[in-house]
């Protein structure tokens, strides 16, 4: 079941802080559309000059989506463009341009709010698809009770950007550091206080326990942590994805997971949860294949 694996994400994301600062200036000075226009040039640059990411994107199009070569070339542009667009939108919304966008809260929003109001801790599991952070300003008071679990390297990077250029998203961050166990105590403490803990269910770093399961037709590795935690703590789980739609629009998708049966043995419950997560994620990717933003060989088991 659980094993250590080599296809892990390296803990860092491309795009130095110069790039971020430049885009922030562009958005503030000339507007969102100008930033999108400039993004087209950046995409053309990234395809040859970020070969590892381009290769991962290409293999995803060819092997997982079964696109032919011509369609895969088009896919590379769309994939990078969407990725850049989500970054621009994130900055634009953080700097107060919320009115330029439309947001659709989906069919399960009321059930989701009921859960948040139900006086128990809730675990949210997302993925590196679309733009999960974009929802933060809408959760207002709920946001103050949200704890985002992220890898320390990822946190150190965005920490600086958050502090320098934008207001925080209103949520708290729990950095994961296997050398000290503080994150485990903080997660358990937050849920005991009936607050909300958010994970990304698709990435792990070297040495982490993983679970293997078929995903888009081939076995892939997922981090064991979020699924083990959620099944052991027996709190409600919601899968959450925010997707960029056409015409300055975002859709929020909430999928309430069924609680795994209590009599299931350890080793089964987390698999039941992971299977539901993969189903939800595959349904999202069927509609928005170009919003898959894991730029490494995800299927190398």
């Amino acid at each position, binding site marked *: 079941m659980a094993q250590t694996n080599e296809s892990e994400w390296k803990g860092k994301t491309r795009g130095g802080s110069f790039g971020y600062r430049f885009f922030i200036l562009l958005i503030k000075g000339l507007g969102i559309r100008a930033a999108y226009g400039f993004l087209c040039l950046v995409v053309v640059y990234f395809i040859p000059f970020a070969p590892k990411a381009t290769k991962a994107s290409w293999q995803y199009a060819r092997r997982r989506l079964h696109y032919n070569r011509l369609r895969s070339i088009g896919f590379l542009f769309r994939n990078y463009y969407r990725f850049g667009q989500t970054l621009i939108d994130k900055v634009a919304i953080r700097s107060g341009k919320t009115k330029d966008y439309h947001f659709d809260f989906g069919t399960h929003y009321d059930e989701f709010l009921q859960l948040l109001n139900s006086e128990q801790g809730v675990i949210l599991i997302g993925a590196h698809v679309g733009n999960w952070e974009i929802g933060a300003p809408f959760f207002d008071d709920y946001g103050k009770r949200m704890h985002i679990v992220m890898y320390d390297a990822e946190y150190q990077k965005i920490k600086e950007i958050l502090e320098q250029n934008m207001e925080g998203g209103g949520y708290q961050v729990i950095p*994961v550091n*296997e*050398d*000290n*166990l*503080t*994150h*485990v*105590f*903080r*997660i*358990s*403490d937050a849920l*005991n206080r009936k607050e909300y803990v958010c994970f990304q269910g698709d990435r792990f770093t070297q040495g982490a*326990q993983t679970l293997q399961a078929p995903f888009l037709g081939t076995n892939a590795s997922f981090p*064991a*942590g979020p699924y*083990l*935690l959620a099944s*052991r*703590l027996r709190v409600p789980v919601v899968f959450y994805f925010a997707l960029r739609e056409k015409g300055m629009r975002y859709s929020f998708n909430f999928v309430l997971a069924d609680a795994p049966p209590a009599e299931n043995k*350890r080793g089964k419950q987390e698999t039941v949860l992971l299977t539901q997560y993969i189903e939800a994620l595959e349904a999202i990717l069927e509609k928005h294949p170009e919003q898959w933003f894991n730029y490494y060989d995800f299927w190398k088991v």
Partner: protein
Amino acid sequence: MEQLKQELKEALIDTLNLEDMTPQEIDDAAPLFGDEGLGLDSIDALEIILILERNYGIRIEKPSEGKEIFYSVDTLAQFITANRTK
């Protein structure tokens, strides 16, 4: 205290799937986490949090103190003795 430590070791072996170990093989003072000692990981830490809640009615109030409390069987037993509600 000795009885509590024995009870704790049995719970650890049972819950953390350490079936190939006996309570005698777990040193009271050895670190539970990290490369020395038992080498447990963060998911195991979560299981121990649940053992404390379920068996002794204890919740860790300050996350920052958790690592010291979870250092060894000795430190866990001391914490349980001082805080147990059942």
